[in-house]
């Protein structure tokens, strides 16, 4: 076995160096709003969508991340920004020479909330359950590991045998949230893998235990004093995550002190309203949530590079970012977040209607003057997508191109996006962080292996595919970074999409909330690090 494998942006040697810190249980890391303060306290968070299930294996959305992060633990854990992966339930891992078998050494002092000791059997059961349910994060593992290929080597050693070598498996490991196999099995009904039980109950090792839960209202968690990572001097005794659908209500509630924190992706005017109130603190972090306009590269006229070049020069990037978004986001010239390894150093396209017109003339010279009406699909309720579509519509009108804007809820648009026949010509949307690896963005959105479900652009270029495929199997990070840079640069040169900005996270909290640790994967909702000062 070799131990030189890397994953995420951390190599194994770095991880091993972190183990003593984990063993000490203090886990002191730099965080926002850090100050000396008293232990304990209660934190109330207003969330913009409902926590209608607590099952960690059936959902994997950002909106419900708090229940997964605070009630469950993974083998490793993402923290901070830029994201670092730290040892968590596992202390180390090794990868076999052929890259197929990943073997993890587990801690022997981890207990579930009912006091049961966590073992390798629980990890095996958890991954098998994810594969069987075919939902949530399980979808990420199905392409790379078959059922029955996870084995408990001994009580505290677990081995995963993959279908093919995978460089991204390591960065997915934090998504394997471990459930108490004995407890869940005891509550299985008609072979449901404990779904009916875990929808309302928690069977984890996480930092908080479930105290109250109402799917219509949210949940309350109490500090799990025996958590293996320990607690240090400052911590929260209780957390409550409430569903508050209306943005205005959330903001007023925070300003009046009913809540201690909100989700951090607010519109610029709301951020300004909070800041100017003087009653709250707003933390700012560049996230890894890229806003872009996906283009249908497989349908005329967008299958022509000259036409696409006209499109990328017809968007007013500066106007949108500085005027509409009031500078609250960071320009991101490619599909890879600028703050992630593997992102090429490119200037980015600029708004230049003269240049767009010259590309359009080149297109017309080859294909004729007739250009059909283009359709942009926008997400109802997400005003930024509608604003972007309107900007494009106005700019293209100046070039003599008519645009229809069709707005619909996300489930409607996403269904349309996943078939080349129904995919609109352009769709503005965000690509969130499910795991911190360039494959999450460039691989999934432009690699042929992910078409048509995740690669919705119908972009298929051998040069790019070769690099993306190679980067999936080799583990040397420098080499992988080079491959992603080359692939991303080619996609950029092909103007395969319009890449606009990388989101900034503006975490609004009451002034007594300290030590918030934002990570793009958890959106600052990993509450074990924070506390409320008296």
């Amino acid at each position, binding site marked *: 076995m070799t131990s030189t494998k890397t994953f995420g942006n951390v190599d194994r040697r770095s991880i091993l160096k972190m183990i003593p810190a984990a063993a000490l249980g203090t886990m002191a890391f730099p965080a926002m709003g850090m100050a000396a303060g008293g232990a304990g306290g209660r934190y109330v968070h207003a969330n913009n969508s409902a926590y*209608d299930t607590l099952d960690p294996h059936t959902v994997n*959305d950002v909106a419900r991340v708090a229940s997964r992060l605070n009630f469950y633990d993974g083998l490793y854990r993402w923290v901070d920004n830029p994201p670092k992966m730290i040892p968590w339930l596992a202390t180390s891992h090794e990868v076999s020479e052929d890259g197929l078998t990943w073997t993890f050494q587990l801690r022997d002092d981890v207990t579930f909330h009912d006091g049961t000791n966590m073992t390798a059997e629980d990890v095996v059961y958890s991954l098998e359950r994810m594969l069987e349910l*075919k939902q949530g994060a399980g979808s990420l593992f199905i392409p790379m590991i078959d059922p029955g290929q996870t084995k408990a080597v001994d009580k505290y050693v677990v081995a995963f045998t993959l279908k093919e070598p995978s460089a991204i498996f390591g960065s997915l490991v934090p998504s394997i949230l471990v459930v108490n196999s004995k407890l869940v099995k005891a509550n299985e009904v008609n072979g449901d893998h404990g779904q009916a039980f875990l929808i309302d109950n928690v069977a984890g090792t996480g930092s908080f235990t479930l105290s109250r839960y*109402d*799917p219509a209202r949210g949940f309350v968690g109490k500090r799990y004093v025996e958590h293996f990572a320990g607690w240090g001097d400052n911590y929260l005794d209780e957390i409550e995550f409430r569903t*508050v659908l*209306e943005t205005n209500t959330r903001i007023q509630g925070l300003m*009046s002190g009913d809540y201690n924190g909100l989700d951090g992706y607010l519109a610029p005017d709301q951020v300004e309203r909070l800041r100017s109130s003087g009653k709250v603190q707003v933390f700012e972090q560049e996230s890894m949530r890229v806003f872009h306009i996906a283009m249908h590269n497989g349908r005329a006229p967008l299958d022509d590079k000259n036409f696409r070049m006209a499109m990328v020069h017809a968007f007013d990037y500066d106007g949108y970012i500085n005027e509409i978004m009031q500078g609250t986001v960071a320009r991101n010239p490619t599909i890879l977040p600028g703050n992630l390894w593997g992102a090429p150093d490119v200037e980015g396209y600029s708004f230049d209607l003269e240049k767009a017109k010259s590309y359009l003339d080149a297109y017309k010279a080859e294909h004729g003057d007739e250009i059909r009406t283009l359709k942009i699909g926008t997400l109802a309720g997400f005003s930024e997508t509608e604003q972007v579509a309107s900007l494009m519509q106005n700019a293209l009108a100046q070039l003599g191109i008519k645009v229809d804007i069709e707005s619909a809820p996300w*489930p409607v648009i996403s269904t*349309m996006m996943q078939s080349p026949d129904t995919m609109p010509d352009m769709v503005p949307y965000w690509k969130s962080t499910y795991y911190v690896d360039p494959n999450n963005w460039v691989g999934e959105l432009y690699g042929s292996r992910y078409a048509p479900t995740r690669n919705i652009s119908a972009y298929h270029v051998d040069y790019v595919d070769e690099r993306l495929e190679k980067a999936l199997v080799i583990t040397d990070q420098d080499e992988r970074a080079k491959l992603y840079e080359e692939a991303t640069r080619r996609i950029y040169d092909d103007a395969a999409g319009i890449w606009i900005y990388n989101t900034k996270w503006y975490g609004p909290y009451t002034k007594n909330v300290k030590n918030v640790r934002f990570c793009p994967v958890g959106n600052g909702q990993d509450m074990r690090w924070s506390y409320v000062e008296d």
Partner: protein
Amino acid sequence: MFVVFFISNVVPTDPARIVAGENATEAQVVALRTEMGLDQPLYVQFGRYIADLATGDLGKSLYTQRAIADDLLHRLPATLELTIAAMIISIGVGVPLGVISAVKRNSWIDQLLRILSVSGLAVASFWLAMELQMYFSTKLGWTPLNGRIGGWGPDEITGFYVIDSLLGGDWASLWDTLHHMLLPAVTLALPAAATLVRFTRAGVLEVINSNYVLYERAMGFPTSLIIWKYVLRNALISTVTQIGLIFGALFAGAVVVEAVFDWPGLGTYAVQSILQSDTKAILGFSIVVGIVFIGVNLLVDIVHTFIDPRTIQ
């Protein structure tokens, strides 16, 4: 139900894809589609839905992943409680003001009440809700901003917090519940009260000039007795009919008010179901609203027989 089912299915969403999640592969989605019976023709799916419905099975929500019947039953008391409170307020305010408006016909009070009732009908409930929140909750701090109760409520017996607080003798929860209910109930009640003012006014005006009222006046009965006992009883027939219709409208209309006030009832469930294109959940909500609407109107018909026994014939 037939119409809602087919309209819901015209919307181009793929429930299998929603369940499988954003990262699912095409093969996973296809397998799930078959498993969920979505590969069958629409009439077959409708037939299955009806067959399940006959056994009380409304299906499973795509988003909450729970039985829709359980979801709806869990949230029903919150919405019913809010709707009943709004109904009480609207009757308590609308009927007396309607009578006053009629008795003081064409006076400045009548003109003012007519303007207010038209305004009450015209005002958008989401706007009113936010204004009330900003003034009474944020600025004055008199009422809670949102929610059904400060903590997690009294020990659950019926799911109606007022009743559960009374049964458990939990006066703190009772006060907190009523306190939280005030703004959403007023928001919901205002358009209903405006409607009742107009209908009561019209009903009273129709009756007030009838012969028996003239006779009672001639007999020297006190005006208040004539109005509140004899006139109002006959004038209320159309108002009571309206109350039945209004209750149904309030129940369905709680969608917006619940969303603004973070009221954990059927309205917020409906909003989320619509946003998630959770068609079976939307259908379930429609069925519950329909049942409540029918039930209340049946009750109204029964009340009619007490107010005017001639309706039995």
